[in-house]
């Protein structure tokens, strides 16, 4: 009996230690997933949990699944999530304040009740029988899986294939926007701007007092007040303008003081 098969049919002390340690981490990761304010953080926590689950799969003798879990789930699906998070950006939806009356209480109640019931159910079930995978893996684990997939589950397999293609096409249909009219030329844009007369010259550049990432920082007008015009429309809509006017003034003051000191020192050194 190979080592692989042995791992799938018995539980060693090592596995127990691994379960308790990694299990704790997985639960913490799951909790972080639902509690983290930022979507990116949630995604990262979830990815962590998934990797732990992959380890558990391996521990349970599901080697193929364990690898697939890492490759497909953590590698592909979670990355897709991150892409979308990037596309959508940080939104107001991230706020953890509840808007539906009683939703949180109900959710807690249901969650608690559900969890207790589920665990009680498992505890109630007679799960004393423990076979291990030794026999079915005798001809090789992946071969065993393949045999099942391509014999008994062939229809399901084919249909999931069709489903995947459909999903891919569906995603394209949903996200792709067909341009229905000719794009306006530079001339036309310029003429429209003149006609509307709202903002004739180009918009002012943002981040006059730029430091690190100036796209979301409004440029200051000569009197020191920030001008929203200088910030990207999208950011404006999301209310993601960072007002650094006071900070900038303080910086200026500090700079002046520093330079004054230096000047003073130079004078003194003279």
């Amino acid at each position, binding site marked *: 009996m190979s080592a692989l098969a042995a791992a799938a049919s018995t539980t060693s002390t090592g596995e127990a230690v691994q379960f308790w340690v990694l299990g704790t981490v997985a639960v913490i990761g799951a909790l972080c997933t639902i509690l983290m304010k930022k979507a990116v953080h949630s995604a990262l926590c979830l990815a962590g949990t998934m990797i732990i689950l992959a380890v558990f799969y391996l521990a349970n003798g599901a080697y193929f699944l364990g690898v697939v879990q890492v490759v497909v789930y953590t590698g592909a699906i979670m990355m897709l999530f991150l892409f979308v998070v990037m596309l959508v950006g940080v939104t107001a939806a991230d706020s953890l304040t509840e808007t539906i009356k009683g*939703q949180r209480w*109900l*959710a807690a*109640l249901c*969650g608690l*009740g*559900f969890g207790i*019931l589920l665990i009680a*159910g498992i505890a109630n079930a007679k799960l004393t029988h423990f076979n291990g995978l030794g026999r079915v893996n005798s001809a090789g684990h992946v071969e065993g899986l393949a045999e099942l997939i391509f014999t008994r589950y062939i229809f399901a397999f084919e249909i999931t294939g069709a489903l995947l293609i459909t999903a891919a096409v569906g995603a394209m249909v949903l996200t792709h926007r067909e341009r229905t009219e000719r794009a306006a030329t530079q001339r036309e844009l310029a003429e429209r701007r003149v006609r509307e007369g709202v903002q004739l010259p180009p918009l002012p550049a943002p981040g006059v007092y730029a430091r690190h990432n100036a796209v979301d920082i409004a440029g200051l007008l000569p009197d020191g007040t920030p001008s929203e015009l200088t910030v990207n429309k999208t950011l404006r809509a999301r209310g993601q303008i960072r007002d650094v006017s006071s900070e900038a003034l303080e910086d200026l003051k500090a700079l002046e003081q520093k330079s004054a000191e230096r000047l003073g020192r130079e004078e003194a050194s003279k």
Partner: protein
Amino acid sequence: MENLIALLVAAPLLGAAVLLCGGRRLDKAGHWLGTLFAAASFGIGVALFADMLGRGADDRTVHQRLFSWIPVEGFQADVAFQLDQLSMTFVLLITGVGTLIHIYSIGYMEHDERRRRFFGYLNLFLAAMLLLVLADNYLLLYVGWEGVGLASYLLIGFWQHKPSAATAAKKAFLVNRVGDMGLSIAIMIMFTTFGTFAFGPVFGAVDGTSEGTLTAIALMLLLAACGKSAQVPLQSWLGDAMEGPTPVSALIHAATMVTAGVYLITRSGAVFDAAPDAQTAVVVVGAVTLLFGAIVGCAKDDIKKALAGSTMSQIGYMILAAGLGPIGYVFAIMHLVTHGFFKAGLFLGAGSVMHGMNDEVDMRKYGGLRKYMPITFVTFGLGYLAIIGFPGLSGFWSKDKIIEAAFAKGGTEGWILGGVALLGAAITAFYMTRVMLLTFFGEKRWQPAPDADAVPSAEPAAEHRAGQLPHPHESPKTMTLPMIVLAFGSVFAGGLFSINEAFVKWLEPVTSFEHGNPPLGAGAITASTVVVLLIGVGLAYVQYGRKPVPVVAPRGSWLTRAARRDLLQDDFNHVVLVRGGEHLTRSLVYVDHSLVDGVVNGTAASVGGLSGRLRKLQNGYARSYAVSMFGGTAILIAATLLMRAV
């Protein structure tokens, strides 16, 4: 020969069908056709009569079974006829008087554009009435019973454009229906008790049946008789029924249909004889109606309504006699026949008078007509003498026998009944003399006919004569001829019947007969009858013959006023039944709308309200739905666990 029985009924029925379905094409000849069919029926009747006379007294009953009518498990109703002496008597009376009245109607209805239909209805009536008396079981009798009710309804309401006529017709039918209810319940009891309702088996099984059951049957039959024969308490329709054309009043509401109750009781003699309590009820009804009708007759100024009161009273006599049992049956029928003659004659006479008087019906506006209408006067006069029981005329023979039989009932009862009958005779004499005096004697009190626009005129072709003074004239021959024939009957029929007790012997095999033993001698009773008769006539003469008659009726005593209003029976009906019924139906309509429907609509509304509340749960937030899904799953798991645990 017995195969002809069906033809008796079929002939007028065919006539009715032809006339009613024939359409306008028959308008010209319709009345002659109708009369022909009636006469044909009479001819068949006479032939059958001759045939019957040719056989022995005990062998005269014949049957004809046409077909099985309603064959249902345990229930056999046949269309079958039975012709015996009793039916024969009726057949001759119905077809005979019927034919005469058909002839009379030719003249009377001359100006009516719907004359064809009138004759159709008359034929329909004859057919139904013949069916009634010829049926050999109660169910078929019931068909005829309701059939005459229908014909009566159609004929009373013949002038449908008059609301009063339409109302009177409806009332007649409704009151009759109450009676019919009695008959149908009686049939149901019979079926439950005997398993059949044919005459023969039922009468044969009377001996082994409890008296209670028989009394129930008899009382229900009495209820039926009360309805059809206008006996208290179901008499109220007869007065109103005078809204119909006069020949109808003569035929249906005097001579034939209203006597069906007497026929029913006589026919069911076996049942009544075995139920003495019911017989007492019959006698009481008869006696009360006798006086009731007579009193009403005294107060009415409308000539037809006065005669209607008289009819009621005379049928009271018959019912009284029929209630006396074997000592009375024969005389009830005998009075029925003689009454058929003289009352039909009287009505035809009244019709003749109205025909000549612009359809005026108020006797106070007649007077002195004997000079203008001699034939009418003579025939009416003979009818008058017959009805008051003038010695020697028909009414005398039959009524006297009834009074004798009443006394012969025996005991206090007998004295009371005899006294009532005598009193009735006196009042009869009084009111008939009053009618006679007001109509044919005294001075002229004619007035222009009422304005046609104000009151839609009853009689045909009256409209163009409205507003003119009437020109009383003798009626055409088609009208006078029947009157003359009937007058002959009024004079001689009673005498003929009484020769050698011919009528008693004729009917005895069917109705059974016992000689009554009145506590007084027959002579004494006859004498007292004549005495009370003279008193009645004398009083009337004092009241109406000696003094001028006011054209507008005086207010009169409370009794007069009550009698004018049919002794307040109508008021009672109106207040209790009509008003009560109206309130009941109105409140039920309300109940149906707001309670029965309301419960359902209320349920719907509350479901709607509830779903309005529940709708708030559907707030559109996907997460809320998720909570319910999640909670639902939790509950399902809990339920599964519980089920496993139990």
